[in-house]
């Protein structure tokens, strides 16, 4: 963990002015009150481009306090460029303590993953969302999708899943897999792999979703029922991996494919870098590391 520092002069705490934060907090409160429902909010132009997490950044800026400890991940890793950039932004503008340890963080901002380590009560997970509307690719018009949500008219969503099974033999959706929240709203969980979907269900943590370009916030309060859409005879299935992580040997984690040469060489390693490091520190060894402790190599 990196201790708090003095925030940059000339900017409000966490960049946004207090009025903007209040506006975002009101949207968050409404979103929490109606789980899975998309609440419009007046997203601001941020000093990062649209589509790079401006929604998540605004939500984080609105909920962050000086005592918070922030973790930022992109694709599960703390060291990917965009995560580094956003973490540096909050260090600079809010001066908050930052960490790569999931267990130490009070706020985790994420793009495309949910950490492997189960979140606990008191933690908040902030998702960056590109397209908040789960029906968008079936019906491009906002006026129509709003009515569909209002009337819970979700037949079309299942037509899409039906078509997948008819064409591919199974539901061909591997990320941004739609869910139904508390039996009411169909929600896009942001492009997390469907492997992560079950982690949303009855999570003790608060989950907030921010879409900056599309100007929507939605939420899953702690202990919300979240069900992945499926058919009774084609139930939702979590992605499974054939091999364990090459570094830490984890068999229950989401793995990234790494190309090691141009002759078809591939290895699979944990996408959640904190999870992988923690396991290695605990003495777990994958095939590539063998039984030798890491320190003794090289």
């Amino acid at each position, binding site marked *: 963990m990196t201790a708090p520092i003095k925030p940059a002069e000339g900017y409000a705490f966490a960049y946004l002015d207090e009025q903007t934060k209040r506006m975002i907090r009101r949207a968050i409160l409404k979103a929490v009150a109606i789980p899975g429902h998309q609440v419009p909010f007046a997203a601001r132009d941020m000093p990062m481009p649209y589509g790079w997490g401006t929604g998540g950044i605004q939500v984080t800026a609105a909920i962050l306090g000086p005592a918070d400890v922030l973790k930022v991940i992109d694709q599960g890793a703390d060291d990917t460029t965009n995560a580094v950039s956003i973490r540096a932004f909050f260090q600079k503008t809010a001066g908050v303590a930052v960490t790569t340890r999931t267990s130490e963080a009070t706020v985790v901002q994420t793009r495309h993953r949910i950490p492997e380590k189960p979140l606990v009560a008191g933690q908040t997970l902030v998702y960056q969302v590109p397209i908040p509307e789960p029906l968008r690719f079936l019906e491009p018009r906002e006026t129509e999708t709003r009515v569909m949500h209002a009337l819970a008219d979700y037949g*079309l969503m299942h037509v899409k899943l*039906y078509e997948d*099974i*008819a064409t591919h033999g199974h539901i061909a959706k591997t990320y941004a897999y739609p869910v139904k929240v508390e039996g009411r709203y169909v929600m896009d969980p942001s492009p997390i792999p469907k492997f992560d979907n079950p982690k949303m269900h009855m999570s003790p943590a608060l989950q907030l979703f921010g879409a900056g370009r599309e100007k929507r916030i939605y939420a899953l309060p702690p202990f919300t029922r979240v069900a992945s859409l499926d058919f*009774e*005879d084609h139930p939702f299935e979590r992605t499974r991996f054939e091999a364990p992580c090459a570094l830490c040997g984890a068999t229950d984690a989401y793995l990234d494919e790494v190309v090691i040469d141009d002759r078809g060489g591939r290895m699979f390693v944990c996408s959640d870098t904190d999870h992988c490091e923690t396991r290695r520190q605990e003495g777990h060894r994958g095939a590539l590391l063998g039984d030798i402790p890491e320190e003794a190599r090289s």
Partner: protein
Amino acid sequence: MTAPLLEARGLTKWYGDRLGCRDVAFDIHEGEVLAIVGESGSGKSTLLSLLSGQLAPTSGSVAYRMRDGAIRDLVSLSEAERRFLFRTDWGFVHQDAAKGLRMGVSAGGNVGERLMAVGARHYGDIRAKAEDWLERVEIEVGRIDEKPTAYSGGMRQRLQIARNLVTAPRLVFMDEPTGGLDVSVQARLLDLLRRLVADMGLAVIVVTHDLAVARLLSDRIMVMRRGRVIEAGLTDRVLDDPREAYTQLLVSSILQP
């Protein structure tokens, strides 16, 4: 005798100062087929839109007896109730099948959509029902995964019918269901429709400019001209013994069967 399924009274529609239709009144009971005939511009399409709640009348009312027996004025239905009616108790067969089908979705998905909209969540059951309906409308079951774009005009129309009938509606609206099809294809479609209507005891309101379609399908007929019903009665009576000069003109201009 039970109350009518649908009861229209004083239906009038003005588009600004242009007349759509005026003072139309009739009843339709379960299992009854009503044909609305007239040339284009006579107001029959306006009337169909009013009856199916897609257009609000300038004055008049349409009362519908819901499945639970309650009688409701269509104007007072909420959007949710109207949509629910349209995917359960009603059907609408368009002249242009592309309007009534999802052209980018397979035949099976087209037939299954209504079932899924009302909560069916068993893929195998949905598919079995879709297969059953393809058979009933004489489409080869092997073509269930093809999109309607691969179908001929007649097949598309039969698929549209299957898509509408899969939830066993009580009332089906049809807008020139055989329009634009070859004569031989028309005959086969009419034959199929007649059989399905009889088997399922459907009430049908069919709009057509083709009196042969009216004779083959309908029990009763309404003749429209300039937005008003000028003659109505049992189909055989109206076509064999037309009273209005305009109806006589219409009847004499087609070949007798």
